[in-house]
C-alpha cells in the first residue's frame, strides 16, 4: 500500500507540471496584451504597460516565464494579481467558503441520494420506486441554473424563507445553495444506488445471510449495503473533487464568494496570475481527491489490492 501511494504521488508530478504549464501558457499566450485594457476607457500609458510586463516577466520566452513562476510556487509564492494583491490571500479567502459549500452539497447528495436509492432499489416497481425514478429524471433534465433561479425566486423572494443571496457564508446559509449544487449529483447517486442495490439484493451472499438467521436490518444494512455502496462511494469521492473546484453557476446565483466566482471574474478581467494560481490549487486538490478515491476503493473492497 505504501509503495502504491508513493508511486501515485510521483505520478502526480508530471501531471501537475503538464496541467500548470498548459494553463500558464493559455492564460498568458492569448493574443492581446493583458495590461492594455486595465485603465478604463483610455489606453494605458506605455510606461505602465512596460512596468507590468517587466513585473510579470512577460518579455521572457514562455518557458522561462513558466520556470520563474514555478520557482515562486515551490517557495509558496503564488505571485500578485494585476491589482497588486497577493494571489494566495484571495485564494485563502475564497477556498474555505467553497469547502463549506462542497461539504454541504456532499452531505445532501449522499444522505438523500443513497436513502432514495436504497428505498427504491429494495422494492421493485411500486409507488416509491416510480417516485424516485421520475423525480431523479426530473432533476437530471433541468440545468442547475434553472433549479437555482427557481429556488431563489420561490423560497427567497416569494416565500421569503431564506435570504436570496448569501451574505455571510456560514454552513447554515449555505444549505440552500448546497441543495441546488447537489441536485444533479443527488439524482445520479440515487439512481446508482438503486441499480446497485437491486442488482445485489438477489446475490448469493444475501441469501446466505438470510439463511444464517440474521435479522433483516443486518441483512440489508450490513451485508447488502456494504457491497452495494462501493461504486456509490467512489462516485461521491470524485464528485467532492468536482465540488471543490468551485461552482460557478451556483455561486453566481446566490452570490457565494467562493472559488468558482473567483475564477470566473479573473478570466473576465484577464487576471492571468489569479487564474493560474487558482487552477494550480484545483489541480492539486483534484489529484489528491482521485488518489483518495482509489485508496478508499481498496478499503471498501478487500479484493482490490495495490501491490
Amino acid at each position, binding site marked *: 500500500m505504501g509503495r502504491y501511494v508513493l508511486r501515485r504521488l510521483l505520478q502526480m508530478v508530471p501531471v501537475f507540471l503538464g496541467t500548470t504549464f498548459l494553463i500558464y501558457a493559455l492564460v498568458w499566450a492569448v493574443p492581446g496584451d493583458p495590461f492594455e485594457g486595465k485603465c478604463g476607457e483610455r489606453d494605458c500609458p506605455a510606461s505602465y504597460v512596460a512596468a507590468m510586463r517587466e513585473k510579470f516577466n512577460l518579455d521572457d520566452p514562455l518557458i522561462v516565464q513558466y520556470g520563474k513562476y514555478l520557482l515562486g510556487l515551490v517557495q509558496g509564492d503564488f505571485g500578485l494579481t494585476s491589482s497588486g494583491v497577493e494571489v494566495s490571500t484571495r485564494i485563502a479567502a475564497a477556498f474555505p467558503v467553497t469547502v463549506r459549500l462542497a461539504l454541504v452539497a456532499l452531505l445532501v447528495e449522499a444522505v438523500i441520494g443513497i436513502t432514495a436509492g436504497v428505498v427504491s432499489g429494495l422494492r421493485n416497481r411500486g409507488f416509491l420506486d416510480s417516485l424516485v425514478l421520475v423525480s431523479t429524471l426530473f432533476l437530471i433534465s433541468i440545468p442547475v441554473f434553472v433549479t437555482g433561479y427557481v429556488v431563489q425566486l420561490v423560497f427567497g423572494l416569494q416565500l421569503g424563507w431564506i435570504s436570496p443571496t448569501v451574505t455571510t457564508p456560514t454552513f447554515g446559509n449555505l444549505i440552500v445553495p448546497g441543495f441546488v449544487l447537489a441536485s444533479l449529483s443527488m439524482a445520479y447517486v440515487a439512481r446508482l444506488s438503486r441499480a446497485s442495490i437491486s442488482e445485489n439484493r438477489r446475490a448469493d451472499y444475501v*441469501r*446466505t*445471510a438470510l439463511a444464517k438467521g440474521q435479522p433483516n436490518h*443486518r441483512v440489508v444494512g*450490513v451485508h447488502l449495503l456494504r457491497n452495494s455502496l462501493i461504486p456509490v462511494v467512489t462516485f461521491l469521492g470524485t464528485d467532492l473533487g468536482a465540488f471543490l473546484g468551485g461552482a460557478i453557476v451556483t455561486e453566481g446565483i446566490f452570490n457565494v464568494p467562493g472559488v468558482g466566482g473567483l475564477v470566473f471574474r479573473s478570466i473576465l478581467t484577464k487576471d492571468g496570475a489569479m487564474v493560474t494560481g487558482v487552477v494550480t490549487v484545483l489541480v492539486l486538490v483534484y489529484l489528491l481527491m482521485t488518489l483518495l478515491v482509489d485508496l478508499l476503493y481498496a478499503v*471498501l473492497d478487500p479484493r482490490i489490492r495495490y501491490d
Partner: protein
Amino acid sequence: MLLEVEDLHVEFRTRDGVARVLNGVSYHVSAGETLAVLGESGSGKSVTAQAIMGILDTPPAFVTRGSVRFHGEELLSASADRRRAVRASGVAMIFQDALSALNPVFTVGFQIEEQLRVRRGMSRADARARAVELLDLVRIPLARQRVRDYPHQFSGGMRQRAMIAMSLALDPEVLIADEPTTALDVTVQAQIMDLLAEIQRERQMGLILITHDLGVVAEVADRIVVMYAGRIVEHADAVSLFRSPGHPYTSALMRSLPRLDSKGTALETIRGLPPSLLRIPPGCPFHPRCSRAEDICASHVPSAVRLGFGRTSACHFAEEVVGGPRG
C-alpha cells in the same frame, strides 16, 4: 420426527405465467440420518430446501400448499421471528458456490462470528475464539491466522470448509447441503463429502444432501428421494434403489452413468429435455421421455405405489419396473 415436509406446493408467478415448481413434495429426515435428494437442474430440489429455510424469493415464489414441520412445529405459518430463530440453529444450510455465497467484503471470521454475536450475544473475543475452533474443526490449517482472511484468499475447497464451519456455528440439528461439492475438483469433492459425513455422524445431525451426482449419493445416503418436475418420483433406501430402481426415470439416470464395464460403448442419455414448469405435460410428467410409456401415462398422474421396505414409486408400472431385469 426431526424435519418433515408434506405435500409442499410452490409456484413462481412470472410474467410468462405461473410455473408450478413444486407439486406435492413430501420427505422427512431423522436425527443421524442422511437423506439424499436427487434430480436434474430445475427439478425443484433447491426450491424445496429454500422453502424449508423460509428464504424463498417472494415474489415471484409462493408456497401455495403444504406443511414444513420441525420437531412437529409447523414452520410455514410461524411468525417471521420464530422462523428466523429456527434458521441456522435448528436447520442450517450450505450452498453450492461458496465463493459467491460468502460475502466478499467481510472476513471469514466476521461471517462466522456474526451469528454468535447477534444470535447468541457472545462477546467479540469469545466469538473469535469459537470461530477459530470451528475452522479448526473443519480442518482449515492455521485457523488462528486464516480467520482474518477474506473469502477470496481461500481456495475453493477451503471456502466450502469455511461455509460448513459457518453453518455449524449455532449447532443445528438439521443441515441442508445444496450441491456442496459441485463447484469443486474431484479430489476436493471427496474430502468435503468425508468431512460432512464425519461431522454428521459425530453430531447426530439430520443431513439433507441435495445433489445430481449419483456417485456421491451411493456413498453417503441412507435414503434417497428422486425428484422430477417438482414431484418426488421415487423414494427408497439407498441399497435397494441402487440394486433395483423402482421408477423408469431413476433407472434411466443410472444407465446414463459412465461405468467401468461399459468402457468404449457410447454413454446412454435420457432423450428429450425436462419439461418447462410453465407447461408440465398432463399425466405423468416424465411420460414424453419415458421408454415404457403407455396411453395411461399421458392421461393419469400416477400416485405413489408402495413397493415394500418403505419404498414408493410414482409410476403406473412401478411393480414391473422394480421387478424387471435391471436397467
